[in-house]
């Protein structure tokens, strides 16, 4: 730790705390209002779970939530599986590796509005009816890089002599994968899957374009609700979604740390 004081420039601390407040203030305001008994939302009257009770009883929110979970669940499983296979393939260098990895990360670089529109046109051109299936298929695409990156990172850190040791101890490639590679990768696979799930659950733009009637997800429901004004119900459902995302991300972070500790 050299020259710690050199790093401490004036105002950086104040700016940082301000920025942290900037990042979290809206989230806290939203959460606070979701518990406000008063409908007008400008005045705080008393603490209440009323809005949560209302959204839980709202059938269109129930459908949207179910759709969200179905889409995120299936897209996550498919994307994680594809990402796991891809990570195993790109683990050792080969000709064209850069191109493949660049391709996998493409959904992160392309503006989502463009991919969304292009995917919509694909379904239109093929004459596929928009519905839950189109949403799931579209979600798989952008979930892959989120599942791929943690798995790939863990594979990189994996002590290669462990795989050689398994091979040496009469494990054929499948047994080696099943008994050594997969158990060691598992925390990273879970961590990647959780991230993919969060990203899919939170997605709005892609779903907005490729969802058909009856396949509305929660974010799309929230968007249309916002368009007609701020209501305590939106605050409550938004709060629920935020909390779910944060819990899942912290879980993924924890899984990643655990995996790191294990392969060391």
């Amino acid at each position, binding site marked *: 730790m050299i020259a710690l004081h050199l790093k401490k420039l004036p105002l950086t601390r104040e700016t940082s705390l301000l920025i942290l407040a900037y990042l979290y203030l809206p989230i806290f305001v939203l959460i606070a209002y979701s518990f406000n008994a008063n409908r007008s939302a400008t005045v705080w009257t008393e603490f209440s779970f009323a809005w949560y009770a209302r959204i839980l009883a709202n059938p269109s929110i129930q459908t949207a939530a179910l759709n969200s979970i179905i889409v995120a669940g299936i897209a996550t499983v498919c994307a994680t599986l594809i990402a796991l296979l891809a990570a195993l393939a790109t683990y050792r260098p080969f000709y064209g590796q850069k191109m493949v990895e660049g391709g996998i990360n493409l959904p992160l670089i*392309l503006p989502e509005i463009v991919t969304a*529109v292009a995917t919509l046109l694909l379904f239109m051109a093929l004459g596929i009816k928009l519905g839950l299936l189109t949403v799931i298929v579209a979600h798989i695409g952008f979930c892959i890089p989120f599942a791929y990156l943690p798995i790939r990172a863990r594979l990189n850190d994996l002590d290669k002599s462990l795989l050689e040791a398994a*091979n040496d101890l009469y494990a054929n490639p499948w047994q080696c994968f099943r008994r050594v590679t997969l158990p060691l990768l598992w925390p990273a696979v879970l961590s990647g899957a959780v991230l993919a799930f969060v990203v899919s659950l*939170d997605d709005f733009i892609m779903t907005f374009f490729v969802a058909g009637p009856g396949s509305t997800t929660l974010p799309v429901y929230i968007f249309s609700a916002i368009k007609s004004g*701020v209501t305590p119900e939106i605050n409550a459902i938004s709060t629920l979604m935020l909390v779910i995302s944060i819990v899942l*991300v912290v879980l993924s972070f924890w899984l990643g740390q655990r995996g790191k500790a294990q392969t060391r």
Partner: protein
Amino acid sequence: MSVSTQSPAMSRLLLLSPVVLTLLALIAIPLGIMGYISLLPRNLYGGVDWQADWQLQSYVKLFFQEGFDGELELNWVYAQALLRSVAQAGGTTLLCFVFGFPVALWMTGLAPRQRSLMVLLITIPFWTNLLIRNYAWLIILREQGWIAQSINALLPQAGGITLLYNDFAVSVGLVYSFLPFMILPIYSTLEKLDWRLVEAAYDLGANRWKALRRVILPLSMPGVIAGALLVFVPSLGAFITPAILGGGKTLMIGNLIQQQFGTARNWPLGSSLSFLLLGILMLALVLYALYSRKTAKTIRRGAAA
């Protein structure tokens, strides 16, 4: 290098085929179709005329319109939206740098545990729903919100300032959405920075600001540039923030694209707008690639010397 019973190239092909097929089906082919549609005329019912010959009309329409006498005149509608988007994205990038750099700098001075906590705190908003986070700003900035109320109470002569549905609100939302993308890359370069160089600068008589400007900032440039790219790219294609916090007047290119596939039902124009957006991003990426190749070379030269 373990030896498997199959040839390694064969098993790699098998493992890669799902991802390659998915990417082809969900990115390459859709973009190809979009390119094709951008070259077709729209038909009367809002779709496209698949049988028509290729034409460049939808690209011409981005900048020109047919006047009354059939002559082409400059059309500023889309160019303005484009310029506004570039300006918004550029401004967002600059603001993210101004606010993000001190945070990254401050983080490097923390104890390791606090640092990883900060990284987590900076990362969490990224993983939460963008739509909801922008909606939260809608609550804060709206007319009945306490900020607008208090400003107008303090400045009654201003005649009712609105904070929402304007460029200001869009800027707040964009900076808020993409600030983590600036902080994290800068932090990771600053973390690896050799602080003895800064000590050397002090030793040679630089004060703190000079050391910052002449040593720390130039050395953290790779992180700054990477962060700028990561902020600029999604800001330029932003759709949610202007849709929620911007009014009808503050359209960005992303909203224009959406309109063509929604109410306007002009697919060819929407497609050509998408390619225009992709073109600008491509330019930014190429500039970035050139920059990183140059810095890689300088670093190599520095290491060789």
